[in-house]
């Protein structure tokens, strides 16, 4: 069933938990990395598992495939390391792994999904800026969070006191 792994940049606080957790479970090499722009804004960069993935289309070795959840995955045994996927990826995601002699990237935590567990970054992001699930569920959640954000900016703290649960 199609799943998405979505990072919402307006909710991200740049704490680097996603990167730390990803590094821990991937032997020191994170697939999600936080970059700081010149204005000081943190942006986590990771594979967006595109629906019409340019990397799949361009790969001359046919090494990139999509699994049953819609995750775009590179097969290191087929990859010839030509870096064409990196050249066409709008987010500069695929990385050359010197040891593997192949390109690697986020596989939406394939091992974890097999056991019925969501990707680790989405489990641990304290700001709940990383969503994982069916597209319609994720979109629903994002709109709910955005509504809360708009309300928070509009209503003063005092009038919110004692109303519902703290957000």
């Amino acid at each position: 069933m199609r799943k998405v792994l979505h990072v919402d940049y307006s909710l991200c606080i740049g704490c680097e938990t996603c990167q730390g957790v990803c590094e821990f479970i991937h032997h020191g090499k994170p697939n999600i990395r936080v970059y700081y722009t010149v204005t000081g804004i943190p942006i986590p960069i990771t594979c967006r598992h595109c629906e019409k993935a340019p990397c799949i289309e361009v790969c001359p070795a046919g090494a990139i495939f999509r699994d049953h959840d819609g995750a775009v995955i590179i097969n290191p045994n087929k990859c010839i390391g030509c870096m064409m996927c990196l050249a066409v990826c709008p987010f500069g995601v695929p990385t050359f792994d010197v040891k593997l002699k192949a390109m690697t990237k986020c596989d939406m935590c394939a091992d974890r999904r097999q056991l019925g567990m969501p990707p680790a970054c989405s489990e641990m992001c304290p700001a709940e800026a990383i969503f994982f699930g069916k597209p319609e569920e994720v979109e629903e959640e994002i709109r709910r969070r955005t509504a809360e954000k708009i309300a928070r900016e509009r209503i003063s703290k005092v009038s919110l006191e004692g109303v519902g649960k703290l957000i």
Partner: protein
Amino acid sequence: MGGMNFAFHCREKPRPTGKKVAVIGAGPAGLAAAGCLVCQGHEVHVYDKLPEPGGLMLFGIPEFRIPIYRVREGCERLEKAFGVKYFPRTKVCFGNPKENGDEFVEREIDFEEIVRNYDAVLIATGTWNAYVPTIPGSDLEGVFPALEYLFRIKSAKLGYMDWSKVPPVEGKKVIVIGAGHTAVDAALESVNLGAEKVYLSYRRTIHEAPAGAYEINLLQQRGVKWLERTMPVKIIGENERVRAIELVKTRLSEPDETGRRRPVPIEGSNFQIDVDYVVCAVGQMPTPPFSKETGIALDRKGRIVVDSRHMTSREGVFAAGDVVLGPSKVGKAVKDGLYAAESIHYWLMEVKE
């Protein structure tokens, strides 16, 4: 979508190993370690001086950044599904002086007793000693370290502290010293609490602000007055209370031996502004759960020294998070906690890495 899943490594609690680990400090480092350790089958007890686990994620960082339920439900899951046992309001100490966040302590446990009672110990007590610059008037009523200020606001929001203990900044003038994330949060919370005027004073320019130019610009949009290239000289009081602050303008010195240009005061450029509160976000010091000799080495900055296994100079006692790194970030503390937990597991099970 629910809480953080600190025990993200496993689906359910595995068979017990029979080993018992104490984690001192329930911030991101301690909780991440606890989650990793329960997934290895160890029994984990978490001690914290605050009424609820979460550390600065709950008692420092404003909830518009980290939603309260995200931390709270995560800690509950660790307890209910994985059997982590919390000992809240319990300060682990060995001659410790009073530190920030001690208001809620109901029990004190000797650090040595913890070491005796567990197979391994992880210290993850963070940096809960916030200081204010030593300038004349820094002891006046109305001067707060930013950590203390934000801690009180969060404690009141969480329902543990009466709002009367939160500085009543509504309709008042507040100056925040510093330009890091803590300073930005203190300024924003002051605006949210209805302060009439909020100033932010920083020794360098917006380009050097550790929080980034974007955050400073956002503050300015919300009406905060940005006073770059200024530093406090003295705080002026009246009847023991803050009335005004004297700042001096700065310029950058010629590069020193390290190539850094330091801000130096420009003589005669002093000026005063009327303020009711001074909030200093200039730094925090590590707070290990001991201040007497325990055989655990600290470095010059008071941080616990650990080896590549995260072990302190005492066998079986490990440390992770800001108490080792100095003030850092949630993610750095989490990562440190994870690697420390892995080392603890190897050490307990005598696995060679």
